């Protein structure tokens, strides 16, 4: 087989063009997939109290693992326990070990990666959550429903968002803006009672 210099350059051009497309399109891919899912699959179908009200006869079986579910952004990810950030290198969210959990009350803090070329974009759409929206945390096979009361951006040095709280709340946070991770996007939500759901 005779592989000429011209053919080599054509192959190299294809590689360079492919790399260019990878660099420029990958950051927007989660937006495209979310749009596509909502267009053709009618978004994320959730079977829990969050969408079923107090009638739990249609609840699907509780997941065996702890999970964070935000139907508005098609997010359904495991909550992983661990001592450092490396536990979410393969996806999922991480509950900060020095914070509370839904069963204990107080402030449950869950973090996730926003976006990078090598990490899964778990919290990519977190900025699309607004005040009043609801999400659920499955914790030890029990569902806790939260309603967002605050969204804001803070510098990474502001660790007050991880502090304890008298009320049972959940704090979700990730990096912002996409690319730089220079600030933190904070979502805080209060636990709803059965009557409020």
């Amino acid at each position, binding site marked *: 087989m005779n592989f000429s210099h011209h053919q080599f*350059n054509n192959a190299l051009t294809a590689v360079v063009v492919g790399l260019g497309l990878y660099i420029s399109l990958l950051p927007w891919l989660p937006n495209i997939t979310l749009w596509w899912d909502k267009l053709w699959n009618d978004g994320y179908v959730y079977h829990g109290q969050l969408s079923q009200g107090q009638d739990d006869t249609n609840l699907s079986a509780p997941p065996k693992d702890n999970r964070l579910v935000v139907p508005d952004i098609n997010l359904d990810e495991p909550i992983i326990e661990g001592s450092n950030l490396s536990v979410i290198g393969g996806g999922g969210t991480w509950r900060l070990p020095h914070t509370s959990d839904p069963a204990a009350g107080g402030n449950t803090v869950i973090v996730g990666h926003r976006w990078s070329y090598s990490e899964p974009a778990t919290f990519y759409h977190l900025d699309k959550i607004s005040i009043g929206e609801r999400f659920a945390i499955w914790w030890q096979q029990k569902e806790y429903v939260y309603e967002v009361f605050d969204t804001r951006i803070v510098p990474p040095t502001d660790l007050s968002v991880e502090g304890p709280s008298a009320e049972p709340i959940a704090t979700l946070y990730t990096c912002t803006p996409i690319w730089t991770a220079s600030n933190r996007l904070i979502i805080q939500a209060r636990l709803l009672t059965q009557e409020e759901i």
Partner: protein
Amino acid sequence: MPKKKAKPTGMSEYTRTIYLFVLLFIGIAFILWAEGQYEQNFIESF
């Protein structure tokens, strides 16, 4: 009378190879730089 060959108008194959490798290097360097920025900033807060 022999026909004159047209002068080459584009860059040579060797020059093209060099340009393509430079672009490839820039692309890979950009990804590594972006990853480094992200990791450094994210880990700073833990």
